[in-house]
């Protein structure tokens, strides 16, 4: 125990070690909190599932960019209503009205307007009807759209439930009925002559939150002020219910780190990258270190033909270009699933010789030392000597090497992911970067998509490098001046 205490005391004196350990602690805390809060199937069920992100703005930069502009950028707003604002009961009729008010004071249009209806229950055979209305600051009240919820089928028994698994989504800014109704009202009020063909050129969100600034023209100005949105649900019995109505105003910014092309919250993916990267890094480095050390000790201690076979094959593998080989093997085996394990295995298969070749001469030197000779003369077996005498003497060196291998594994995985060979069930920083690159993020200037994952990869790599560098003066006490 005193040895460990001594070691920790010595290590803590080294600056790079201190910084490295602090960073590593942060990485571990983040990873553990992510593992304990994220679902196990995050990759398939959430991250790579576009419908999960349907209500997020696409390609929205982070929220804090508004600090750098004077204009007020629309924030992403989700308004949830569990209880109807007004309720009207008649004979065999229940009218529930959900109303939201918002003071629109932004200098830009929102990216979309959605209404979500969740879990409608009804008993009558006559299906419920939904109407969406909008009241604008210019006193226009527009009935945007209406639709009837799917009625019961012949075999269905009441209560009839709809939109339980996933909510019903009305994308008002893409709904042609709403757009037509708005155009009609706007043309009436502002004596403009907008047609449906103009909408894609104007941008549908401008119809909702703007007004034609010149009569006859297509220019729009933002209409600031108080907006009201109404969702009216007519249920033709007196006991039906609606669980929740959401009004979603798509922002032009989103979250702390923005969104990507399908509206994914990048912060969620980047956070998930912590445990994913650490797992890949640790697994690969443990495997490589284990195989490399065992073969190195065998090669050095047993010698002879074993030594020759291990060293020759190690030499050949070490002379293979690593990345092309990794790409080739991952590509060939990509259809077999469990790709991240495959990456780790291939990485291990082609990087063990590095350690083996370094360890061999160290073992050979030890083999001729007196304490080993003493052990042999006491009748110790080869395995005993290798386990009890050689391994402990190399332990610190091997641990240092294994830490050094972690960043290389993380960087290799990131490189493979960047080439589109990553594991879709396990989102990593490399994959986020790849999707950004493939969607043209760098040519379109979506920096929030590609800069943060890279910073995280670099920070993680630096953490392990600093620890390795910190271990150097402990392994080599003669070396005094390190950073």
């Amino acid at each position, binding site marked *: 125990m005193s040895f460990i205490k001594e070691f920790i005391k010595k290590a803590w004196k080294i600056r790079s070690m201190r910084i490295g350990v602090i960073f590593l602690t942060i990485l571990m805390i983040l990873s553990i909190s992510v593992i304990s809060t994220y679902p196990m199937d995050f990759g398939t069920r959430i991250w790579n599932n576009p419908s999960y992100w349907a209500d997020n703005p696409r390609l929205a930069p982070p929220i804090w960019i508004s600090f750098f502009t004077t204009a007020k950028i629309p924030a992403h707003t989700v308004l949830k209503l569990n209880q109807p604002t007004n309720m009207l009961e008649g004979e065999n009729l229940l009218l529930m009205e959900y109303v939201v008010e918002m003071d629109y004071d932004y200098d830009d249009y929102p990216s979309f307007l959605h209404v979500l209806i969740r879990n409608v229950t009804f008993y009558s055979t006559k299906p419920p009807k939904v109407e969406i209305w909008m009241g604008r600051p210019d006193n226009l009240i527009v009935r945007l759209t209406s639709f009837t919820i799917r009625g019961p089928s012949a075999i269905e028994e009441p209560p009839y439930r709809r939109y339980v698994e996933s909510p019903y989504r009305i994308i008002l800014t893409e709904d042609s009925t709403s757009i037509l109704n708005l155009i009609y009202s706007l043309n009436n009020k502002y004596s403009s002559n907008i047609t449906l063909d103009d909408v894609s050129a104007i941008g549908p969100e401008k119809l909702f939150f703007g007004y034609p600034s010149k009569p006859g023209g297509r220019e729009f100005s933002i209409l600031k002020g108080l907006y009201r949105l109404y969702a009216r649900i007519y249920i033709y019995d007196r006991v039906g219910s609606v669980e929740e109505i959401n009004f979603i105003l798509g922002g032009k910014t989103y979250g702390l780190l923005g969104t990507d092309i399908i509206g994914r919250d990048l912060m969620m993916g980047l956070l998930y990258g912590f445990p994913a990267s650490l797992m890949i890094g640790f697994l690969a480095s443990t495997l490589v270190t284990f195989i490399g050390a065992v073969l190195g000790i065998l090669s050095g201690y047993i010698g002879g033909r074993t030594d020759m076979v291990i060293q*020759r094959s190690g*030499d*050949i593998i070490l*002379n*293979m*270009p*690593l*990345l*092309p*080989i990794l*790409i*080739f*093997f991952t*590509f*060939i*085996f990509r259809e077999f699933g469990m790709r991240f394990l495959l990456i780790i295995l291939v990485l291990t298969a082609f990087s063990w010789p590095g350690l083996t070749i370094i360890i061999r001469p160290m073992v050979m030197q030890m083999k001729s030392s007196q304490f080993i000779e003493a052990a042999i003369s006491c009748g110790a077996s080869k395995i005993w000597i290798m386990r009890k005498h050689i391994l402990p003497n190399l332990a610190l060196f091997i641990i240092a090497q294994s830490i050094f291998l972690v*960043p290389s594994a993380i*960087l290799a995985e*990131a*490189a493979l992911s*960047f*080439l*589109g*060979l990553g594991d879709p069930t396990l989102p990593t920083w490399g994959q986020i*970067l790849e999707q950004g*690159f493939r969607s043209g993020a*760098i*040519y*379109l*200037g979506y*920096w929030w998509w*590609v*800069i943060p994952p*890279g910073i995280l*990869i*670099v920070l993680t*790599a*630096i953490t392990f*490098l*600093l620890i390795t*560098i910190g271990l150097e003066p402990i392994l*080599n006490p*003669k*070396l*005094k*001046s390190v*950073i």
Partner: protein
Amino acid sequence: MIKPLFYRLLSLLLVAPAILLLMALVLGLTGISDRILVSIAEQTLQEVKKTLATQIHDPSALETAIQLRKQEIYSIYGLDKPWFYRMFQMIIRIATFDLGRTRVIKSFTGSQEVSEIILERIPNTILLVTIPLIFSAIVGTLIGVKIASKPGTLLDRLTSYLSIISYSLPSWWVGIVLIILFGFHLKIFPVSGMYSIPPPSDTLSRILDLIWHSILPFTTLVIVQIGGWIYSARMIVLNIAQEDYVTVARAKGLPEDIVRRRYILRVAAPPIVTNIVLGLSGSLGGAIITETIFGWHGMGSLYYQAIMTLEENLLIALTYIYTLIHILARIILEIIYLALDPRVRY
């Protein structure tokens, strides 16, 4: 002296057949080799069908003739036997640079021969890889040696930390950052490609255009490589500086300048060369992605295209060629090493 060198070179030369054997095994065992050959055979069969249809008009006779030809073609490609019978042939085929044809990707001149496609891209890759490598090796080593003479100072610490950061930067990410900054926002350098579109006509402006396009990739590669050079040169020099004979030399009263030149740097040279060997292999692989980012028409971006379009033939060939270039570089450096270090007498 010759014999051990011969063994070293032999083990290097064994790498190429080892790679081929590995690839053949993997392709055979996974059934991909069969898939490739069947698609080639079917292509040939389609052509045969066309010519046969013009000669034979009776449908049943045509059918039997086609079946006959099909068996013939399949046996020519060895598809009538299991994959391991063909493995030897395949190894010979690739080893002799009969690399096959691509499905979609074409060379700049429109050829679909894999060897032609690769051949016209090799110079571009070498141009991209070697210049930043040599630059960072020389400049990095000089800086490393320089800061090692005054270890522990603020400058030394700062440079060391910067070099650690440089070492952990993935080249492709640095490329992305530089493109966004200088290509997209500041618009100083082109975001992609090797030449402007259309490329300038006369040679001089073509070269200038190429240089202009290569500044960002060059900077990227130097940024990510130089740190490793600085740090390793510093560590090597520091390690040698604490040897006893250096202390003796100082105790003898030799001027510091001579101690450094004769007793430290002379000894530090061979391990630094070893680093060039390792650096070269690293940068060759790294260039695969750097080229992709910068739209550089080298082997690396070709590799990316081959993955995206699932061109198996091209992928096999590229992996093989990468191995060959890698081995060649190692052999050259092995010989340089021999010349440089007076103690190395194999």
